């Protein structure tokens, strides 16, 4: 069980206050809301890239609030895929797990044979699939997705939404998606939360 209890964060204005969430294994939640309402900051706080003002993050009963991002085992997929340009696809994946079978991971995201490809040659959709495969290789306790489908065209976005959802369900990996697109939220998530 992954839980967020009473999370609060403000900069000049309050972004979110007393935010609570509980995720069962394999459960997918979408958080929607207009630009600037704090969706991305919420994910950054959960992942440990930003500090919370108040609140606790628990995983299997353990409080992980004060752990640094690299020790939380929380995956994050950015709006645009963050792939390291000095490493090829295979080596990018190896960052998440040295001993993992890269070809299996690539098979899962329908990118068989991409191990040696330079990341410069990937399309937007392929890049996101590699980022997804890499994030899953790290075996995260929860996967956070920060509008990963927004930079893709509509058709590709629809296909990727279904593929990613199926993959997460197959792996029983809980996930939180933030998006301003209600259609994507409906297609992807089991539960939708609106952040105002």
């Amino acid at each position, binding site marked *: 069980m992954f839980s967020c209890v009473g999370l609060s964060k403000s900069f000049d204005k309050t972004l979110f206050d007393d935010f609570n969430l509980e995720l069962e294994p394999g459960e997918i939640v979408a958080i929607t809301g207009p630009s600037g309402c704090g969706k991305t900051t919420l994910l950054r706080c959960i*992942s*440990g*890239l930003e500090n919370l003002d108040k609140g606790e993050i628990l995983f299997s009963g353990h409080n992980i609030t004060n752990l*640094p*991002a*690299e*020790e939380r*085992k*929380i*995956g*994050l997929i*950015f709006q645009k895929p*963050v792939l*390291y*340009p*000095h*490493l090829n696809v295979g080596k990018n994946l190896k*960052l*998440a797990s040295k001993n993992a079978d890269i070809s299996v991971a690539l098979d899962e995201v329908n990118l068989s044979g991409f191990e040696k490809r330079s990341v410069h040659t990937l399309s937007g959709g392929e890049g996101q699939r590699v980022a997804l495969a*890499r*994030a899953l290789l*790290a075996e995260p306790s929860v996967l956070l997705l920060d509008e990963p489908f927004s930079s893709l065209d509509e058709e590709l976005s629809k296909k990727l939404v279904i593929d990613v959802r199926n993959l997460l369900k197959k792996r029983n990996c809980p996930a939180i998606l933030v998006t301003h697109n209600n259609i994507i939220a409906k297609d992807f998530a089991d539960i939708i939360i609106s952040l105002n």
Partner: protein
Amino acid sequence: MHNKYLGTASVCVFLTLILAPLWLAFDRLVWVAGFDIFSWINSLDENYISQGVLEFTVLQALLSSLVTLAIGIPVAWQLGRYEWPFQSLIRSILTMPFVMPSIVAAMGFMHIVGNEGLNIRTNANTWFATLIIAHAWFNISLVIRFCEPVLSTLDPKMEEQMRLLPAGKSKLGRLRNLWLPLMIPSIAAAACMTFVFSFTSFALVRWITLGENTLESMMAGVGSSAGISGYMVSKNEVILGSSLIQFTILLFSLWLMSWLQMKRQTLLPTTSETVAKSKNVLGWSVILPAICFAILPLLTIMIASFRINEVDASGSNQYWSLAGWEYAFSTTNSLPSAWDALQNSVGYALITLLIALPLGYILAQTIRDLEKERPKLARVVDLLTMLPFAVSSVMIGLGVMLGMIRIDAEFFYSIWFTPILAHVMITTPFVVRIILPALRSLEPKYEECARTLGLTNIQRFFIIEIPLLRGSILVAAIFIMAMSMGEFGASWVITRNSDWTTLPIIIDSIRSIPYNNPLTTPAANAVSTVLMLIALVLFVSTEKFRPTRDGGMF
């Protein structure tokens, strides 16, 4: 590596390295001359050694800046506005003089105007002109590096729009209303930097002028008798007065330079698209002479190293020979061989690299980290790392030398390591200036993503940060090697009383041997050729690894 203890330690080490020798030197000079600022400044007018030196220094630096702009702007215009075959090669040739050690340039120009060349150096008017042209030769690359990007990457729509407006119908109108306002900060920044380099020029002044001094060369000259209690007290006052004036002028110039750089960057409406440029056949009339100008002194040195000129009662006898090279690379009664100097130079450069590169990198990383959390403190640390830019190489040399005298002269003169301290002081600020823009341009998401993948601090440093910054790190490393190998001012002050000679110092020493030995000039040119080739290889490597539009100053 993001570690605040390491960052604090690096700032402390750097400040100790920079400030301790300068403070000890200052303390020693004040101990001899007394603390009276007005007396120091007045001594410049009263002492025959320093009379007129400040005026000459400012005049030659101003004229050098003007001539550099006059030559450099048309070249930058042609390179930036038109398409040229082998454009990057042309640019490399034209920017190469800047990385050449000053002593090599001095030897080249000496030969061109000396009695084996045009033979015009005996005339006071011509040596002054030669000095100005030599400074222009050195600094023309600054004008190109500052102005050419403004011209070559400007969004073409800006000019197209201007053509359609009444104010931009004529070429003159477009120049007045578009190009000049955009280019003035770049031109001023290049002029400012040229002024600084000409103001602190040492090797060229020492060799090209006939007895005239700048503040820099005068300080180097009188420095050997400074810091001794009761001995030539007035010279200590002259050094203190000169240092104070030089430091103030350089500090102001650097502040101006930094302000102009900021203006320049905000004024650059660039395009990322490749801009289609036209050819300009007439432009060769600017580019070709500029290429010849850049190459001529270097070619002259190489040729002159094989040319022997024997003068006896029956006249002069000139012939081609390798004798100059043999003389340079063999030990004589008065001088060590160029091999020894080469070994010392390489050794000094490598150890300087091992110290200055990590130190500069950690300093840059500390500034970058502070910029995110404590921007005001970041600005202070940033300014402190630039402090050595306001202290010329001779001042650094004097600082190290007098600092050594203050602590234990015999010990410091006996160890091989001493000149490295000056080299580290000179090169570390350049490392910071090269690495910091690269760190700033590094996408923060790379670091964040690596953290969410579970990579530790050390893993992120070695697997992500270092490979992504590889180009800038290599440029910084090569820059350290080139600067250390070619460093003249500080080394001249420190090593001339010791056994640890370097390539630039041995060139100076060989050339200082009286003229009755026909091998001195070709031998000095032979060592200059070696130093020039080393600088050339390092320069070509830098160009290969330099990240495109990294925003760095060097």
